[in-house]
Every structure is written in C-alpha cells, then in structure tokens.
C-alpha cells in the first residue's frame, strides 16, 4: 500500500479508516468559521434546517467591515450578536482581528478538519489542519450536522529549496510572499483546482509559522482546495508561544506518498515578485515593475499582516518618511499581532514615517471601508487578490507584493526593489 499525503493522513485519522485521493467521504468537522459577510446567510440556512444548537463549535468574527462603516452593516452585526449570545457561538468582536489569523492563534490544531465560510480558511493548513473554504450553506450544513462531505483531494507536492550551502532560508529581501506568488505564476490561477498543495523542502522547514501561513493562505489563488504544511518543531514553537502546546502533535506525509505531481522550486536566486492587475497569476519580477507610481500602499491582511511582515516593513521604514504622494496603511492581522508590534515599537515607526495604523482586521482588502480607491488610482498591497473592483473601485488598479516591497515603495512613491534598502542595513530578512 502506498504511503499517504498530509491530506489523506488527516482525513484517515479523523475517520478512523484509510482513505485515498478520489474517495468521497463524509467527515466529522472540528470547527466552523464565519464572519459578518458570510454568517448572516449561514445563520438563515441553519435555521431553515430546523436546528437549534450548532453541533460543532462555531467561531464568528467581525473583521471584514468592522467597526461597522454604515448602518446596514451595523444591523447585520447586531443580529449576529443576538444569535451568538443565544447559541454559545464564539463571537470575536470588532478589533479581535482577521478570522484566519485568530483561528491560527487560538483555535486551529494539527489533524483537525476545519470548514470556513471564507475562501482563505486554507490558511490554517500551515498548522497541519485540513482547512477548507466553503460557502455559507456548506457552513450551515456543517453547523447542523456536525459533518460534511468532501472528495479527498489529489495533492501537488511543492518542495522549496533556497539559500546557499549553509542556509536553507530565503535570500535577503525575498519573503514567503514572493515564493508563493512565484508558485502561483507557475501554476496559473486555476492550476491547482480541486487539489491540495503540500508545501515542504528545506526552505519551508526553516520557515516560521508566519511564513507558512502566507504560503497556505494563497493556495486558493491557484484554485487549490487547501494548502498544507507538516506539523513539526516550528508548529510546536508557535503553539507554545500561544499557550496551546497541549494540542500539538507531529504530522508529516509518508515518504512514499503518492502525489499527482511534484514541483521543485529553487528560490536562491528569486527576485522579489509583483502581481500585476487584473489577476493574481500575472507575476513579474520587481525589476519589471520598478517605476510604476502608486497612490496607496497597504501592509496587512490575512496574507501579510503578521509580526514577521510588520518587522520587515518597519526595518525599511525606520528613520524614513513615506513619499508625500502616497498613503501608507498598516493593518495588523490580529489584536495579538497589534500588541506585540506596539511593544516592539513597530507601530511607532509606521506612524512616525507618516503611515496610518488601522485596527486589527481586514482593512481595505475587500473594498468596503478604510481605504477604498479612487478613480484611476493605483494601490500596492500585500493582500492576496488584485481583481478589478476588489478594493471598492473597478476603475482602480491593484498590484500585489511582499511587505518589504510595499514598504520600500511607500518610501519612493513607486514600485521599488526592497533589496537595496535591506542591503544598506547589512542584514538579511529571515529573523
């Protein structure tokens, strides 16, 4: 019998019998997630299913449009608060942070099956959970039945190698975001549809949880069902830091696992990457983007709003000023990240540089508030999507890049290679 991929292993563990890619299974679910954008419909459907109490822990987040920017949304939140109070739903109030970040910090654990009414639920795959984005109805069904159906996905194994002989890390100024954008460029925006992406290799082993979450977060941008990383020492460190070491257990794919395909990527010479509008797979190297003027820079989101990202941006922005033609917005991904960034003095660096620090949450990513773009404007963002209209205006353009590239570009007012800025300080970026 062939060995198992991470996806097969988790689903087999959860079911207590061996499953393999292609099988249809009905699996008990450990956690469900919804936010104020997807929960109202999920609650409506849940009620239509005639159930009273959810059969599985429900995590509800106010992060997409929080605090409420208009009365309709305030009323939606009011109704959800009432539902949460009645049914022992775990409500995460305004200011707690982005659902995927808080999921990783407080809830997700290796080996779990997680269903979320948000496409980036796959972020929790960084901890070795099988975490799947679905729609509101699927979340309602899971709330009602405590289980849902899945097709066990085929897996594309991605081995990432970087650095020289002594180091398995990434070159200075090159981040997990650049790596995953490069991968999406290789796979195409539908290149992994229905598949799981399993990330491994020396560069991933050396990567902390912040970086792994960036990889898994963008798996869906190649159409994947989820992204996964093994649960190892890094996972243990992260869980320990969050006071949750009790939920840790090691989880790795078998060495003879059957993959649909393997992709080896050497990133030792990878330049910083930029995604051009209007789609995530229009990936170019930063050299090809240099000189493009930007009006707004966003550092944050479930892709790049973590401590690693903010530290990196702060290293570039420390003692510098944001270009007068640019608005710099920084949105820490969670309250935890916000507090740590404050303690380390990072927020002060952003504010002194002339940036605006937003409350923990999605910020302007989904185009509802806190930085909607004007006609013909251009934004460089660390988020994961650059579709037309994504930031609230179809007549605006969104470029995607790493927090290093974003910070450097905020200083110069145009898309800029961050390596010069980091080299000046004589150190790499993987701290």
């Amino acid at each position, binding site marked *: 019998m062939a060995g198992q991929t991470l996806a097969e292993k988790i689903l087999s563990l959860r079911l207590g019998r061996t499953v393999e890619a292609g099988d249809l299974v*009905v699996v008990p679910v450990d956690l469900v997630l919804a936010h104020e954008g997807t929960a109202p419909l999920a609650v409506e459907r849940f009620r239509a299913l005639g159930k009273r109490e959810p059969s599985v822990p429900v995590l509800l987040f106010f992060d997409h449009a929080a605090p409420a920017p208009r009365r309709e949304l305030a009323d939606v939140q009011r109704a959800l608060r009432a539902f949460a109070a009645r049914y022992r739903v775990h409500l995460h109030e305004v200011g707690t942070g982005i659902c995927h970040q808080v999921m990783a910090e407080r809830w997700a654990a290796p080996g779990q099956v997680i269903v979320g009414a948000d496409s980036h639920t796959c972020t929790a795959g960084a901890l070795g959970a099988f975490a799947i984005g679905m729609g509101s109805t699927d979340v309602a069904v899971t709330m009602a039945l405590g289980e849902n159906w899945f097709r066990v996905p085929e897996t594309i194994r991605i081995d990432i190698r970087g650095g020289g002989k002594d180091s398995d890390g990434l070159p200075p100024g090159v981040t997990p975001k650049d790596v995953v954008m490069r991968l999406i460029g290789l796979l195409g925006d539908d290149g992994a549809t229905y598949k799981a992406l399993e990330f491994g290799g020396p560069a991933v082993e050396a990567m902390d949880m912040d970086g792994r979450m960036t990889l898994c977060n963008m798996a869906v941008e190649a159409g994947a069902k989820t992204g996964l990383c093994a649960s190892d020492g890094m996972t243990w460190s992260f869980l320990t830091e969050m006071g949750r070491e009790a939920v840790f257990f090691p989880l790795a794919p078998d060495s003879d696992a059957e993959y649909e395909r393997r992709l080896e990527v050497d990133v030792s010479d990878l330049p910083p990457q930029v995604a051009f509008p209007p789609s995530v797979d229009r990936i170019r190297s930063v050299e090809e983007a240099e000189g493009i003027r930007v009006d707004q820079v966003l550092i944050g989101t479930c892709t790049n709003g973590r401590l690693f990202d903010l530290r990196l941006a702060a290293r570039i922005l420390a003692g510098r000023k944001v270009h007068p033609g640019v608005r710099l917005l920084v949105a820490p991904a969670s309250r935890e990240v916000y507090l740590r960034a404050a303690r380390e003095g990072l927020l002060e660096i952003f504010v002194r540089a002339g940036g605006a620090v937003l409350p923990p949450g999605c910020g302007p990513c989904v185009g509802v508030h806190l930085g909607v773009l004007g006609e013909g404007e251009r934004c460089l963002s660390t988020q994961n999507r650059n579709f037309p209209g994504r930031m609230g205006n179809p007549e605006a353009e969104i470029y995607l890049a790493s927090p290093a590239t974003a910070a450097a570009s905020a200083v110069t007012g145009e898309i800029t290679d961050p390596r010069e800025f980091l080299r000046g300080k004589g150190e790499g970026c993987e701290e």
Partner: protein
Amino acid sequence: MRGVIRGRAWRFGDGITTDHIIPGRYYHLRDDIRALARHAMEDADPDFARSARPGDLIVAGKNFGQGSSREYAPLVLLERGIGAVVAESFARIFFRNAINVGLPLVICDTEGIEAGDELEIDLEWGKARNLTRGFERDFNPLPPWLRAVLGEGGVVPYILKHGGLGFVRPTRGHEKGG
C-alpha cells in the same frame, strides 16, 4: 431540475471572479437579495445587470467563479432567473455553492458560442445545442448524486426531505468502483 433548458446566451471570457459577479462594494445590500441582484455581473458587463431576463444563460470560459467564497454570487444569478451557467471550468467553491443553492452548472467547451445565441441544453444526457448556429456539443453531465441535490432545489431542501447527506455514497477505502 428540469432535464432540458433553453435560453439566450450572455457571453463572458475566462477568469470571471466572484468580484465580477457581485462586487464587494455592495456588501451592505447583502440583506436584500433583490437589490443586490440588480448589480449582478456589473463589473464584467453592465448590460447584463440592466437587461438580463429570466431564462437567460451565462456562457463563459475557464475558471468561472474564482476568488471569494461569497455565496451571493450564485444567488444573484438565481435571483435574476439565470437557467444555468455553461463554462469550460469552474472554481471549486463556486461550484459547490451553485449546487448547494440549486443553480445548474454545465462544464462544456464553449468555443463558438456567441452573445445572443439560442441554446438548448440537456442536463441529463449531456448535449448542448446551439440553435442559432446549428451545432451540437456533448459534455459530461454532472454525476447523478449532484443532480439529485439540484433536483431538490439545493442542499437545504434535500436535507429537509431526506434527513441527511444521503446523496453522498462514501467510497470505502480502497474498495473503489462499487
């Protein structure tokens, strides 16, 4: 789900995202599906938002429905009375959402189908006829178990009627093919 549907094609290309289907800036209208549906496909073809009629069909290229998991995407199309979405491929979450809410999907080669063409589609036997241009195409119909969900009008009515996820007949381990 009716076996054969007929309607006029609206033509779209590859990579239509859920942001095209229903832009995030109408977030505040999510509580009012009729108001929301007036903006359906607005960023891909403003004409559609103005003048799509019940029974019309959406015809597109690859990866229809990529991006956000918003279920309002298939819902606004249903609300506008769209008979089916015919595309070369669908993004995974959109696919599941559409079946869940009872919007028929057809995975079919769409080359040569132009805006305004009259199509007749046999969802069960996998035949798409272009009545305007006089050609016919075979496609793989959705598997019977997913058609069973569509037949009940979505997964919620299915569960209410059958008491659970009976449409999924789990394959057991390696004993496949049964």
